[in-house]
């Protein structure tokens, strides 16, 4: 194996079981995937298919029941230095409502990255991150989350992740709260970052339209398992699995 073949972040046979005995739920069941620099991988699947659980495993917010996690080829499944890990791997979550501490202003939320960034955390860097997602820093920095609309909150969350300048970004339904125009803008921000800095992105969505627009590879998940995966064009325009076809059929269309 040459060094170029080593993926930035890889999961091998990741499995996570919640509960015990008869109540056990295999939220993620033997999933393997590899994220490479400059590549956007999309996971699509219905609600409850285990997408968020997979994201949390890759973020080391959950420990896998089985399987390994490799960063730059190193096994990091059980290492204790999560702070260093989070300098490389950041995330944006699905729900901009519960993702905020309601007692913190945006400024304090951003300032919390101090443990990760140390003196690199400057006002200018915070402002830049906010501007990347189309927010005016002066406008939002002093606000509490309840003073922001849903879409504004989600953009603050994306800015928080970008502030760290990670090498891997995991976006768990990060754009589902945004309107079409903003969504396109944010997706363009992500694709540009990927092109400029070689960011590896795991983009989780239930919207095949978005998957189609941004991704290089697509994984289709159902009940914790990957049922189909491959290059975007193949999976979306020539699906082989019946489940993928159903997902495509359920996409609401604008015309006709």
């Amino acid at each position, binding site marked *: 194996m040459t060094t170029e073949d080593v993926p930035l972040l890889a999961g091998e046979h990741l499995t996570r079981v919640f509960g015990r005995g008869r109540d056990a739920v295999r939220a993620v069941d033997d999933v393997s995937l590899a994220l490479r620099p400059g590549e956007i991988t999309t996971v699509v*699947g*219905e*609600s*409850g298919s285990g997408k*968020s659980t997979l994201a949390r495993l890759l973020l080391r917010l959950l420990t896998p029941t089985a399987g390994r996690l490799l960063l730059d080829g190193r096994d990091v499944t059980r290492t204790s230095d999560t702070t260093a890990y989070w300098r490389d791997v950041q995330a944006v979550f*699905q*729900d901009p*409502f*519960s993702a905020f501490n309601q007692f913190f202003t945006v400024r304090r939320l951003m300032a919390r990255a101090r443990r990760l960034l140390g003196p690199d955390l400057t006002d200018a860097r915070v402002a830049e991150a906010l501007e990347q997602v*189309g927010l*005016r820093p002066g*406008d939002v920095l002093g606000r509490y989350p309840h*003073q922001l*609309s*849903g*879409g*504004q909150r*989600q*953009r603050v969350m994306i800015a928080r992740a970008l502030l760290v300048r990670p090498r891997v970004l995991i976006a768990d*339904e990060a754009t*589902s*709260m*945004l*309107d*079409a*125009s*903003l*969504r*396109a*803008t944010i*997706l*363009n921000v992500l694709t540009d970052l990927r092109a400029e800095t070689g960011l590896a992105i795991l983009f989780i969505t*239930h*919207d*095949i*339209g*978005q*998957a*189609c*627009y941004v991704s290089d590879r697509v994984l289709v998940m159902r009940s914790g398992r990957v049922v189909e995966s491959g290059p*975007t*064009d193949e999976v*979306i*325009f020539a699906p082989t699995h019946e489940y993928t076809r*159903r*997902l*495509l059929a*359920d*996409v*609401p*269309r*604008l*015309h006709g």
Partner: protein
Amino acid sequence: MSTEGPATDLAPADAAAGQLLTARGLRAAYGPTVAVDDVALTVGTGEVLGIAGESGCGKSTLAAVLSLTARPPLTVLGGDLTVDGQHLDLAGRPPRTWRGGVVSLLPQGAMNALSATARVGDMAVDVVRAHRGRVPRSVALDLLADRLDALDLPRRVIGAYPHQLSGGMRQRVVTVLSTLLDPRLLIADEPTSALDVSTQRALVELLRELVGRGLVGGIVFVTHDLPVLRAVADRIAVMYAGRIVETGPTAALVDDPRHPYTAALLSSVLVPEPQVRRRRIGGIRGAPPDLADPPAGCRFRPRCSLATDACTDDPPAVGDPDRYATCWWTRDHPDERLEPSL
């Protein structure tokens, strides 16, 4: 303030007959930020009205005003509502009896406000008892079970705590709970945004069925998601910076938008088609205006590619109350199609 524009175009006589909801001159603000500015709406009986618009344009604020749930720092500056023939001047205090039974709000993010220590079944019993007095537990649970079945939710949900459900399940539970009492008018704020396409479809079908069976008189469906509105709404009103800029029957509005903003919004929708992969789809350039200090005249002017000098004056509502767009370009080019030009 409402000398020109759609609010006055809607004479009361037009609006009264057959309408479930008539709202006129709605204005509401968070301090200096006027998030809803002179909005007029009608919802017919059995109709689903979609409200579309980008993030921060005031959709949730409008939902709060319509559902009488505005509380500080949001203040309602004026406007009046007629629901089911009952008239209400919003400048006064809303009567308690309206909330819940007449208008019910399904708030944005409600799925996360569920009490963490109660089972879904207990919540349903609470909801029913809060409005109907001492109803046997089994009656409330039966009602819940029926609705769960209709949404393809497993019955184990009844005994589950919210944290045991996935996001999609919670949203459906919240929807079921807020329609248990069959309100006349349901205001649903972004109910589908957190859902996957299959669940969205199920939810949309449930809402349509509730309206179809007359259990809910009508729905105001707030979302940023135009394809979902295409599926659920009979009519769509497009909001921009606190105002309604275009309204019309769903198909007409989507196929032939008459306002440049609507056209731009429609053209940034991502659909799983091969051409989407080859093209860079830009959002609308620029940012929406600061609602504390909106630009004079057309509020879309700084971002509009068709803007002319005329646009510094308030644009007229072109069309009739059921199908209008407030735009100078549209007035001057009545027969020209708006090409998405971004």
